[in-house]
């Protein structure tokens, strides 16, 4: 809708403030609009900064683990895993097999939980409220399983340095298998029919917020956002950590099925398809969990890595989650720097909206499709 020259219009400066129903956290966007068309946006972050990296310089390695939970709080085990594996790399520690399998299972379940929430809130941002509740019903089942395993529903501190905190019993494994059987064909198909292939949803998300391949790579996008633009890069396959190289699974990539490659629908669909692949991995892991110990008890009590530094990256639910740990030989880390994937993902917003053609309602769709968590952006 181009502005005509003979009609005098005024620009409006809107503040999509830190408190807003659909900014996925405390995120402020100052928007300059011409009616409904956006001319420019300016994002402001930092409202959830909690000095994680500074705190990590003052507490011991074991005590940092609960703090890592609280960064990307929707997929907390993956944060734990990244940090724990980084420290284990520094210490050259061997983690028992059973612990590795348990880590894979819970991390993939966490990824499913995070994607369920992303998909549910995305529907709600666009006005479809029912898929949100259905997604949360399934997420609730997962949270119940997590509560049985480690006692907490959101901030687990389960994956510790040297293994995992508690053992998994047969009953819990059965619960996980029941969940997989319940979730995989039927519920996911129902989500597809209710939301993914809904004509109005496609009209809202297809051809909206297109991120071309080169732009995605330039801005350091990772995770489902990068894969939605057609780049087949998944750390679990390209640089396997933990024991991911023992599992076979696909890496879904956006292909412009309902519009252009790299639009919001592609990113959303990559997440839905990733959930299927995660169930695949969990099933394979369930069939192969060995007996053994779940933690290297001696090493996990005294964590004193030798001097050195390591950068360890894992595939978080939102992208490449990296931990740069510098140790000076004591029990307290010298520096822990986190590369939060949402921080890089969200940096693309301002560039996407400055080209014109983005409407106000599209900003909501774009932010939702980038799936940011402010805990990760601000740390």
């Amino acid at each position, binding site marked *: 809708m181009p502005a005509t020259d003979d009609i005098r219009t005024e620009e409006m400066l809107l503040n999509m403030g830190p408190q807003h129903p659909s900014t996925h956290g405390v995120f402020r966007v100052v928007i300059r609009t011409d009616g409904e068309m956006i001319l420019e946006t300016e994002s402001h972050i930092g409202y959830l900064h909690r000095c994680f990296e500074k705190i990590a310089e003052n507490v011991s390695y074991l005590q940092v683990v609960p703090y890592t939970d609280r960064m990307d709080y929707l997929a907390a085990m993956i944060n734990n895993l990244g940090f724990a594996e980084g420290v284990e790399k520094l210490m050259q520690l061997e983690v028992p097999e059973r612990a590795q399998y348990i880590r894979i299972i819970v991390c993939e379940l966490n990824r499913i939980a995070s994607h369920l929430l992303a998909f549910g809130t995305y529907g709600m941002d666009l006005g479809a409220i029912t898929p949100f509740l259905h997604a949360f019903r399934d997420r609730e089942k997962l949270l119940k399983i997590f509560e049985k*395993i480690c006692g907490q529903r959101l901030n687990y*501190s389960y994956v510790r340095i040297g293994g995992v905190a508690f053992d998994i019993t047969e009953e819990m494994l059965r619960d996980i298998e029941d969940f997989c059987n319940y979730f995989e064909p039927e519920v996911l198909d129902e989500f597809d029919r209710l*939301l993914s292939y*809904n004509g109005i949803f496609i009209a809202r998300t297809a051809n909206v917020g297109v991120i071309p391949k080169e732009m995605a790579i330039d801005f350091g996008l990772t995770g489902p956002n990068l894969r939605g633009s057609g780049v087949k890069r998944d750390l679990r396959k390209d640089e396997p950590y933990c024991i991911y190289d023992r599992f076979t699974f696909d890496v879904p990539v956006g292909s412009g099925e309902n519009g252009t490659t790299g639009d919001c629908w592609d990113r959303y669909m990559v997440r839905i398809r990733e959930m299927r692949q995660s169930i695949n991995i969990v099933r394979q892991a369930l069939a192969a969990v060995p007996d053994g110990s779940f933690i290297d008890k001696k090493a996990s009590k005294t964590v004193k890595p030798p001097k050195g530094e390591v950068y360890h990256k894992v595939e978080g639910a939102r992208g490449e989650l990296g931990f740069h740990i510098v140790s000076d030989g004591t029990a307290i880390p010298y520096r822990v720097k986190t590369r939060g994937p949402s921080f890089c993902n969200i940096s693309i917003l301002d560039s996407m909206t400055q080209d014109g053609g983005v409407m106000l309602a599209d900003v909501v769709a774009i932010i939702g499709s980038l799936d940011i968590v402010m805990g990760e952006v601000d740390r």
Partner: protein
Amino acid sequence: MSVTRYFSNIFGVGKSIVIGMSITMKYFVESLLFKKHTVTVQYPREMDAIPERHRGIHYLETEKCIMCWKCSDICPVDCIYIEGVRGADGVLKDGWRGKKATLSKFTVDYTVCIFCGLCEEPCPPLCIHLGPEFDYHSTDRKLMEKNLLTDAVYTEDDEKFVQWARDENVRLIDETKAKKAAARAAKAAAAEQEKDD
């Protein structure tokens, strides 16, 4: 846009809408007639079962505690406060007898605690646990500190007892020092006496 594309658009959207509506109708009818699908319960009258490993409010098995301060040290947010006297000889007149220690204060501040569960692991006699209770609320910040020795809110009387215990501790230490000094003096005097003899 061609005519066929126009109509196929309309019918495509219409069809997907009808499919979506059939799903919600299915949920509606089945939840009404067959009581399926409903996952919410009428809390607090009905509640889901609390799993065994649930990390809630702490409880302490006092008689096992050896006052090693390991749980307090590992706590990432420093919310456990422990005070007492080492030694099981009943040095403190009142207080809670553990193994090898008499405790005067063992509180957890729930405005700070993050329920991470790190305190359970390093405890040598495994006496501190996070229990199934989760409903701990109040309107006053001062009432959010729980005294694990009395299994109740940390009151002002408890604070007075702790203060008394600290003073008593200092007094006992001075007393012990004085006794030791007197004993040494007596021994020196006795040795002097012997030398004279």
